[in-house]
């Protein structure tokens, strides 16, 4: 039981890490209907900017600010030079363009900041919390708890921003209905640039967390792959959905990795570990069969 709890908690906490990446997808999809595959590459770019600036001698806080500036500028440039020119194209074309963007970033970032893997030290040692370890013999990572706190902060900040600021409300209006938003005088392109800036910020937070966890390197782009099933379960358009989806995926994936392979081994013989690659997707698929628009997604009604 104690082991089960340990797995569950560690799963939930790594789910938060997935959710951090998924948030960036949600923000952009909600506001502009673009499924931004480059989000993973943006996480990489953000983390690399921080590490690169620190290598040049900047302290952590300055590096983060500089990275934020870089990400915002990059987001705005993307909107201006790529997506604005693709307005009214089918979603798949936009999706493809973001894959092209991912390639672009994957080529550009190492040229600017170098490609060797680096450590990113946020000053949090990733060790089991001693008190819990002693009392219940349970491993809970300090770092993961901090990450969960950061995610909570980010979601709260985003929620407040969307709820109470003028720009935030405009963003929600755009997300609801482009046409209507335009007709009441919300400058659409302006808004999209802001969304890409915010998505860049989300990528920065995810990049900091993932970079500190596994090192700053190319493989950060793979974080996007874990975020996709999170999106399906949570729905492409819901911020709380991303968090809930992340928790569900994280926990079930870890539990499955521990408890499923032995079952399969007794059925077929052989070694069946390493199911984390596909399990979240299959789980997401089953969710879809029950709720085709995701847990928190908006119900879509077709009219002919």
């Amino acid at each position: 039981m104690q082991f089960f709890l340990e797995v569950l908690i560690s799963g939930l906490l790594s789910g938060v890490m997935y959710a951090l990446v998924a948030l960036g997808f949600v923000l952009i999809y909600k506001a502009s209907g673009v499924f931004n595959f480059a989000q993973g590459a943006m996480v990489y770019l953000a983390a690399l900017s921080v590490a690169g600036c620190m290598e040049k001698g900047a302290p952590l806080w300055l590096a983060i600010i500089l990275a934020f500036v870089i990400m915002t500028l990059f987001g705005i440039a993307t909107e201006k030079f790529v997506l604005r020119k693709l307005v009214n194209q089918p979603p798949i074309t936009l999706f493809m363009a973001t894959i092209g963007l991912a390639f672009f970033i994957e080529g550009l970032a190492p040229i600017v900041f170098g490609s060797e893997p680096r450590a990113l030290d946020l000053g949090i040692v990733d060790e089991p919390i001693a008190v819990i370890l002693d009392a219940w013999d349970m491993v809970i990572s300090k770092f993961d708890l901090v990450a969960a706190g950061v995610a909570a902060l980010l979601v709260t900040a985003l929620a407040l921003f969307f709820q109470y600021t003028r720009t935030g409300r405009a963003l929600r209006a755009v997300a609801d209905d482009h046409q209507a938003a335009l007709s009441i005088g919300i400058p659409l392109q302006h808004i999209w640039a802001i969304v890409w800036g915010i998505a860049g910020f989300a990528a920065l937070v995810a990049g900091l967390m993932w970079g500190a966890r596994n090192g700053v390197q190319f493989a950060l782009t793979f974080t996007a792959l874990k975020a996709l099933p999170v999106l399906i379960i949570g729905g492409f358009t819901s911020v709380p959905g991303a968090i809930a989806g992340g928790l569900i995926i994280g926990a079930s994936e870890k539990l499955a990795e521990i408890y499923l392979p032995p079952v399969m081994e007794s059925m077929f013989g052989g070694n069946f570990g390493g199911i984390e690659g596909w399990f979240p997707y299959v789980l997401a698929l089953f969710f879809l069969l029950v709720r085709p628009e995701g847990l928190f997604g908006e119900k879509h009604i077709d009219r002919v």
Partner: protein
Amino acid sequence: MFKHRMSALTAAVSIALLSQAALAAEEQFFPVLSYRIGPYGANGQSFFGGFVDYLSYVNLKENGINGVKITWEECETEYNNAKGIECYERMKDKAAISTGPIHPMSTGISYALIDKTVADKIPMAMVGYGRTDAVDGSVFPYAFPLVTTYQMQASAIIRFLKEKEKGHLEGKKIVFLYHDSAYGKEPIVALQEEAKLNKFELTVIPVAHPGNEQGAQWLKIRQENPDYVVFWGWGVMNQTAIKAAQKIGFSRDKIVGSWWAGSEEDTVPAGDAAKGYMSATWNVAGKDVPLIADIEKVVYGAGQGNLGNTSKIGTILYNRGVSAAVLSIEAIRKAQEKYGKGKAMTGEQVRWGMENLDISDARLKEIGATNLLPEIKTSCDNHEGSGKIKIQQWDGTQWVVVSGWIEGNKGLIHPLFKASAEQYAKEKGMTPRDCAKEM
């Protein structure tokens, strides 16, 4: 301005033409299938940086191999099998005249090239990776898993642990944590045999590619509470494992990685967590090796270095690239002894050289490569040549060698290769060479 550029252009063209003419005077061509981008790009940069730098070094220092200038062409494979084939086919025609061995540095690409290299008579070196049963040269005449193989390495690591436990592994528990691909799966057979022999308990735990999330695996390890973890990772999986071990409080000095899980690229991103972590290697890190220091002086002094970032010189993978190039050049020297000094060697001739390598410690000392390689002696039925490794430990800033040469259990492992090679020959319907006649 325009005129200037034109004259520069004509100069460039005439230089190109001149070098074309020089090709008629003896030149040894090297097809270099390198990769510098993608998830493993950082590893490739160090390895191929070292490889190419040594080729430049031989040109600058000794004016080529016995006067034969070395030329090379690089092609970016992106660690992708299909791209690797394209690169190989592109260079094939050039390599038909004279060629150094190909080093794909990718198990997948080497598998895809096995049959092609035989047909085209181009030798392929797989230094510490690739198709391991190619140790049996009677079935694989053109493929050379030089220095040592995954199976021999696994066996040597077990021997190291056994010595650490004062000769007894009985009743111990060892977890094998591996990248779920051809690379990670190869050693399992060897470890199972070793487990039977040494009566330790072996648990194998796979990690799905790319391995950037290993929470579940390490919790399982925590539950198993093994005495040691033998670890076969590549790329991001390495740092993640080290960090994840710290996360559950598993002591890093009980983890022994393979030689692809033991470079600065793996430990530096893990930060302090990597302190104490051990891995296999056959080459030391650092610039104390005379050859490495000399390369930096000669090649980078002449401004012909291949690396953009010179801080990589002397890293594990850089030095390993140099060691791979040393093997190639020595094979060509050997071939020249038989087929004519001062001549460019064809693939067939180089193949002979690789099959008759005999690099002693004295020779290594002569070229300043002591500690870059173990002694190597290849033959038709042993394309591996050594089977020895050292164990190194990360002290927080650099790799420190903590053992002497350790050889895997040849009597146990080599028959496995033989059997696997025989099965391959049967599937392909080919008759192996008779090694007795090759002497």
